[in-house]
C-alpha cells in the first residue's frame, strides 16, 4: 500500500504579506482554539482505512502560532486515527522571529523533525515592502535557535526577482543563504497574483515591474550557485543536500495520496479522486462543530486528466518521468501520444527524451509551463 501524507492547514497569520493569495486570516486566539479542536475532530472522523502515514505537514498561514499543546492535540488525533511510520517526516512552517527557543524545543519533543520558514530575502527594506514583520537578523536568529533546538532538517524560502531587486542583490542573498547551509532551500521567482496588494502596487507604478530577462538570469544564477555549494536541484524551485528532499511535497509531484485537514485543505486519494475543504476558517469550524462535512468539492479525474496531472507534476522533478512506469500506471505511451509536441519541445531545447525517461532541461525548467501545456 502506498504510504500517505497528512497535511494540516493553519489559516492564521499575524499580518498578511503583500504577495500572498493563500487562505489565511488574522490570528484570533479564541477562534484558533476552536479551530484546533475542529481539525482534531475532522481527523478523528476520517475513514483512514489501513493507510500508513509517513509524512505530516503543518502548513499555512503561520502554523507556529499554535501552542505546543495545540500541536499535540492535532498530532494525537493523527496517531489515533492512522498508523504512523517510525521514520515519519513531520514538518512545521513558521515565520522568523515569532517562535521562542522554548516553543521550538517543545515542538521537537512532540516529534516535529523538520522546520520550514519564509526568509524571503535578507534585505530588510524589501522585507518591509513585502509586508513581512521580521528582519534578516530575525531569520538568522531563528535558524540558530532551530539548530540549538536539535533540528537537523531545516528549510527556508527565498524569493528572487522582487520589485527593484538587482542581480547582484540576489547574488548576495544566495551567498547568505548558502553560508547558513540549510538542508533544504526553496528558491522562487516572485509570482504576482491578481488581487494582492503587490499586484495593485505594481499596476499603479508604485513599484518597478520585475523584468522577465533579469528574472531568468537570477534563476540561472541560483542553479549555478546551489550546484557549486553541493546542493541538488531536485525540483523546479527546490534544492537540497543529498538525501534531504521534501518527502511530503514529493508526494504531490508523484501523485501519491495526501489527506488534507483544516480549511482550504486539498486531498488526493492516490487513485482518481481529489477533494477540498471549505476555504473560510470560521465556516469550516462551524461545519465541523455542527457535525457536517467540511468538504465542498470532490473531483473524480478521468484517465486523460490523471495522466496529464502525472506528467506535469512529475516533470517538476528534475529526474523527470519514468516512461515505462507511466505507461504501466496510465496505459499510455507518451512518446506516441505527444509525438509532435515532444519533437517541437525537444527542438526548442526544453526537454530531454529517451526510451526510459522524459525530463526538463535547465532551460526547460524556466519555461516549464510551455512544456506542461502540451500535456493538459
Amino acid at each position, binding site marked *: 500500500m502506498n504510504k500517505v501524507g497528512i*497535511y494540516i492547514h493553519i489559516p492564521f497569520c499575524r499580518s498578511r504579506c503583500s504577495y500572498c493569495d*493563500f487562505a489565511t486570516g488574522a490570528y484570533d486566539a479564541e477562534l484558533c482554539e476552536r479551530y484546533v479542536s475542529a481539525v482534531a475532530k475532522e481527523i478523528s472522523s476520517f475513514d483512514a482505512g489501513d493507510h500508513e502515514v509517513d509524512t505530516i505537514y503543518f*502548513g499555512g498561514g503561520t502554523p507556529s502560532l499554535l501552542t505546543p499543546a495545540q500541536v499535540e492535540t492535532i498530532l494525537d488525533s493523527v496517531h489515533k486515527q492512522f498508523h504512523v511510520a517510525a521514520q515519519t517526516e513531520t514538518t512545521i512552517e513558521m515565520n522568523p522571529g515569532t517562535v521562542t527557543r522554548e516553543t521550538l524545543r517543545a515542538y521537537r519533543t512532540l516529534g516535529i523533525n523538520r522546520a520550514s520558514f519564509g526568509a524571503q530575502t535578507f534585505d530588510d527594506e524589501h522585507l518591509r515592502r513585502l509586508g513581512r514583520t521580521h528582519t534578516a537578523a530575525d531569520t538568522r536568529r531563528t535558524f540558530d535557535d532551530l539548530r540549538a533546538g536539535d533540528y537537523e532538517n531545516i528549510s527556508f524560502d527565498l524569493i528572487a526577482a522582487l520589485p527593484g531587486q538587482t542581480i547582484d542583490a540576489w547574488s548576495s542573498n544566495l551567498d547568505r543563504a548558502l553560508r547558513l547551509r540549510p538542508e533544504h532551500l*526553496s528558491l*522562487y*521567482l516572485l*509570482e504576482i497574483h491578481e488581487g494582492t496588494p503587490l499586484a495593485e502596487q505594481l499596476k499603479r507604478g508604485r513599484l518597478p515591474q520585475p523584468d*522577465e*530577462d533579469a*528574472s*531568468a538570469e537570477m*534563476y540561472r544564477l541560483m542553479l549555478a550557485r546551489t550546484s557549486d555549494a553541493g546542493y541538488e536541484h531536485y525540483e*523546479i*524551485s527546490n534544492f537540497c543536500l543529498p538525501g534531504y528532499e521534501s518527502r511530503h*511535497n514529493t508526494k*504531490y*509531484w508523484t501523485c501519491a495520496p*495526501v489527506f*488534507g485537514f483544516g480549511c482550504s*485543505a*486539498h*486531498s*488526493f486519494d492516490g487513485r482518481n479522486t*481529489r477533494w*477540498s475543504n471549505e476555504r473560510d476558517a470560521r465556516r469550516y469550524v462551524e461545519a465541523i462543530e455542527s457535525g457536517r462535512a467540511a468538504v465542498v468539492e470532490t*473531483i473524480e479525474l478521468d484517465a486523460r*486528466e490523471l495522466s*496529464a*496531472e502525472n506528467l*506535469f*507534476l512529475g516533470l*517538476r522533478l528534475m529526474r523527470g518521468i519514468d516512461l515505462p512506469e507511466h505507461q504501466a500506471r496510465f496505459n499510455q505511451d507518451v512518446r506516441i501520444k505527444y509525438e509532435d509536441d515532444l519533437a517541437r519541445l525537444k527542438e*526548442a531545447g*526544453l526537454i530531454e527524451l529517451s526510451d526510459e525517461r522524459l525530463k526538463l532541461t535547465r532551460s526547460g*525548467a*524556466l*519555461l*516549464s*509551463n*510551455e512544456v*506542461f*501545456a*502540451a500535456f*493538459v
Partner: protein
Amino acid sequence: MNPERIRNFSIIAHIDHGKSTLADRLLQLTGAVAEREMENQVLDNMDLERERGITIKSHAVRLDYKARDGESYVLNLIDTPGHVDFSYEVSRSLSACEGALLVVDASQGVEAQTLANTYLAIDNNLELIPVINKIDLPGAEPEKALEQIERVIGLDTANAVLTSAKTGLGVPEVLEAIVRDVPSPKGDPSAPLMALIFDSWYDAYRGVIVLFRVIDGSITTGMKIRFFNTGRDYQVENLGVNRPRPTPIDRLSVGEVGFLTASIKTVADVQIGDTITEAARPTTEPFPGFQEIKPMVFAGLYPIEANQYEELRDALDKLRLNDASFFYEPESSTALGFGFRCGFLGLLHMEIVQERLEREFNLDLITTAPGVRYRVTRTDGEVVEVDSPAKMPDPVHIDKIEEPIIRATILSSDDYLGGILPLLEEKRGVQKGFEYISDNRVMLTYELPLNEIVLDFYDRLKSVSRGYASLDYSFAGFWESDLVKLDILVAGEPVDALSLILHRATSQARGRTLAEKMRQLIPRQLFEVPIQAAIGGKIIARESVKAMGKNVIAKCYGGDISRKRKLLEKQKEGKKRMKRVGRVEIPQEAFLAVLKVND
C-alpha cells in the same frame, strides 16, 4: 391625380443642420403624423440611422397639404441618403424631384456636403429653396449664411425662408414656398409608362419593395411591368403610397411617387436608376442617368472564430438581399483563414455593412486594411484590376499601375489651413482650387488618390481642424503612380493579411511603423522571432521579438493541483485561438490592433 397639384421635393443638408427635424415638422404640420405619435426622426427606420444621425436608405412620404390659396396639394418628400458614399443614390432621388430645400445651419454656414448635393440638384435642374435653420440659437448669423449661398452657389436667396425646425418657427412658410416655387411635374399621361426607381429594400414578408416616381403614363395594380435595364418582367401585386403608413392605391400616374411589390426575391434584381415600363407597351428610351453601381473601397472580412465562416457567408447572402451595392467573393489568408473580399461604395458603407453583420447576425469579424481597385498594366500589355494586395502581380511583370482619384471639396475656417494644407500635401493632393467664400471661410478643391482617403484621411482632417472642416468628394478618374506592395514577414513568412499597396514615398516609414507595432504585439515565443518589412525582395525594416524568458509556476504543492491544471488548460486554449504563421503563434488581437493603426 392632377399633376398641377403635385410637388415633389427633397431636402439637402449637411449632417446635423436639421434635416430630420425639419422633415418631422413637415409631417406633423400636414397631419401625416399626429403629435402623440411623434417620435424623433420618423423617417430614419434603421437603428443604425438613428444612432449615427444619418440617412442610409431613401424614403418617400406623401403629405396632404391645404395651401393658403385654398387648394389641396400632394407634397412628396423624397428623403435622400446623407453621405458621399451614396452620391449615386442621392442623384437618383433628386432626379425624381422638381425642387429641393437647401437647409443650412444659421451658425455653421455652407458645408462641403451641402455643396456636393446642391451641385447634384443643380445638375438635375431642381428649383432650390434656401432654408436657413436654427435661427433661434444664440450664434445664429442668417445673413452670413445667405451671403455664402449667394457667393458660393450663386443662388438667388430672395425666396429664402428662415426657420427653427426645433421650435416650429417659419415651418408653415416652408410649406407655402414649396407650393409656390417648386414646379409641378410635367409628363405625358397617355405615353407608355416610364417610372424611375430610386430605392428598394427587402421586406421579410412582402419581398422586395420598390420606390419609384412616375414620369410618363400610369401604373396600376396587376399591370405586367418590365425593368428596362435588367429586362425582367413582373406583375404588380401591391401598389401604394406612404403617408407615412403604407396605404394601398390602384393607380399612380404622372408625377406621383409610390411603392410596388411584385414577388421580387432580391434587391439585386432591382437596380437603382432603372426605368419601369409596361411590358405590353414599353417605352422606347429609358429615363436617362442610369449607371451600374461600382464598389470603390475593398477590404477582407474574416470571422474571428474560424467556425463562423459558413454563418458569415449566409449573413452576406442575406444582407445582399437588402443592399445590392456591395459585392463579395471568397478569399483565404494564411493568417486569418477563410473569409471574403468585399467591395463597398465607400468607408461609411463598409462600416455600416460590418456593423450590421456584427449586430444583426451576431458575428465577430476582423476587417483588413481598406484599399481601392487599381488598374495594373502588365508588361505583356494586359490590363488587370487589382482590389487586394494578394492579387498584385510580381513587380517585374508590371508596366504601370494606375490608381483611382477623387476630387475633394473641403470647407473650413482659414484658422485651420496650417494643419489642412500639409495634410493634403502628405496625402499626395494636387490643388485645383482655393477660394474664400466669406471673410474667413475657405473652399479648397483638390485631386487626391482615393487610397490616401481610405487609410485615415477623414480622421486626421477632423483632428487638424478640431472637427470643423467638412469634406465631400466624387470619383474623378485614374492617374499613374509609383505604387509598391509592402509585405510584413514574421520569422521569414509573409503575413498576407498585413500586406498593403501604397506609394513608394511613404512605404519606408509605414514599413517601419508596422514592423515596430508587430514587435510590440507578438508575445515572446520559445525562439527569437525576426520581423521584417519588405518591398519586392528588399528588406526595409527589421525588428525582433526576443525569445521567452520564463513561464513557470514556482510553488506547486499544498495540493490545489486542479487549479494548476486549469491554469495550464487555459494557457493551451489561448494558444489554440492564436493564428499560426509558420512556427509563430500570433494572437488575433495583434492583427486587430495593427489593422486599426491610423499612423
